């Protein structure tokens, strides 16, 4: 009776409380989306309270290959996109402060 395609893989996401992002919980097998939702509640939220619950069919997610995942590790030299790329600013401010103290700038 076509059991191979009977179950499908679903990924479960939930938000613990307001202000938090959705987090991946785990995956489960279910024959359809509604059952996946019911089973996600039963499997993962028997005690802890949650604000929101999503189930997504795994085949609808664009997953990464190992090569892609390992390629991500290479992302470096991106300091210019972050505050830490501008660590020299206090030194520049100091220059002006010293100049004022030695009377270089009008009071």
């Amino acid at each position, binding site marked *: 009776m076509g059991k191979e395609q009977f*179950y499908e893989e679903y990924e479960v996401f939930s938000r613990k409380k307001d202000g938090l992002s959705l987090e991946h919980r785990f995956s489960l097998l279910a*024959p*359809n989306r509604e059952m996946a939702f019911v089973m996600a509640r039963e*499997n993962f939220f*028997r005690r802890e309270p949650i604000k929101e619950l999503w189930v997504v069919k795994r085949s609808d997610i664009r997953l990464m290959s*190992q*090569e892609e995942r390992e390629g991500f590790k*290479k992302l470096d030299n991106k300091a210019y996109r972050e505050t830490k790329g501008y660590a020299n600013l206090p030194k520049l401010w100091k220059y002006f402060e010293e100049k004022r103290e030695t009377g270089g700038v009008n009071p």
Partner: protein
Amino acid sequence: MEVIHYRELTDEEKYEHFMERIENDEKIEAGDWMPDEYRKALIKLISSHGASEIMGALPEKEWVPKAPTIDRKLSIMAKVQDEMGHGQLLLRVAEDLLKPMGKNREDLLQDLFSKKLKFHNVFHMPSPTWADAAIIAWLVDGAAILTQTMLLKTSYGPYGRALKRICQEESFHAKHGESLVLALASGTEKQKQMLQESLNRWWEPLLMFFGPKSTKDIGHSSVDINMKYKIRFKTNEELRQEFLTKYVEKIQLLGLTIPDETICFDEEKQEWIYQQPDWKKFKQVVSGNGPRSDARISLRRDSYDESEWVREALSDYKNKNQSLVG
């Protein structure tokens, strides 16, 4: 670091890269390249762990209708449900590993019914009294917690994530067990005797739970392979010693007697000396020839067969309404 182009690598290079990742404590994910030996070791470990959770719910399940108070009924019911949930998580992890081999959950269940898929020795044993429910939750879960905590750092990412969740729930199981044992140990003479008799029944299976010390005892062991790939980090004996350190004193404190006159801590060697369990019996039990093996496996099979109509109905519904579902 260079970008790896998997298709251009030879098998040896892939293996080398894989081992480098293991050495660097990277987590391996389901779709990653892995040596066959690693995949097989994971499948064996995780599918029997999953089967143990499912079969492990059965000895306690017998006590759900007979729990002495409504509070006890609620907590043992919650525990039984948790164990089934653990089974769900672990089978899911095993299924993703089995996928490239063309196998699925159905195959795992059939293997369980045919005794090809093994589960822990303790879940083949009878639980004739309420004190057995207490000893199981306190000590069997206590033993399982030691094993599962050791596995938390496992190199296989999905297994580690499942275990994290399982361990959180296990801490409730341990408290539930402690509470049951403390109630009986401070009860009537009859209750104390019931607890002692249950400990007598469970002591040998508990020592067996961790598996034999050396491969000599049962002929083969996957511990070495699992350690090589950082799937696990401690030997069977190390875990058993931890168990004794954690529980022997507590058991004695409750006024119970451990059914082993030789048990003592060797200060010089810094290890527990104890009567070795009968490893031949162990092998026999885990092969599906324990006192309750057949009854519990057939209970599981009956429940599977009886729910076949639900799967049939859902399957028909799905085929007829492809556009409505999923």
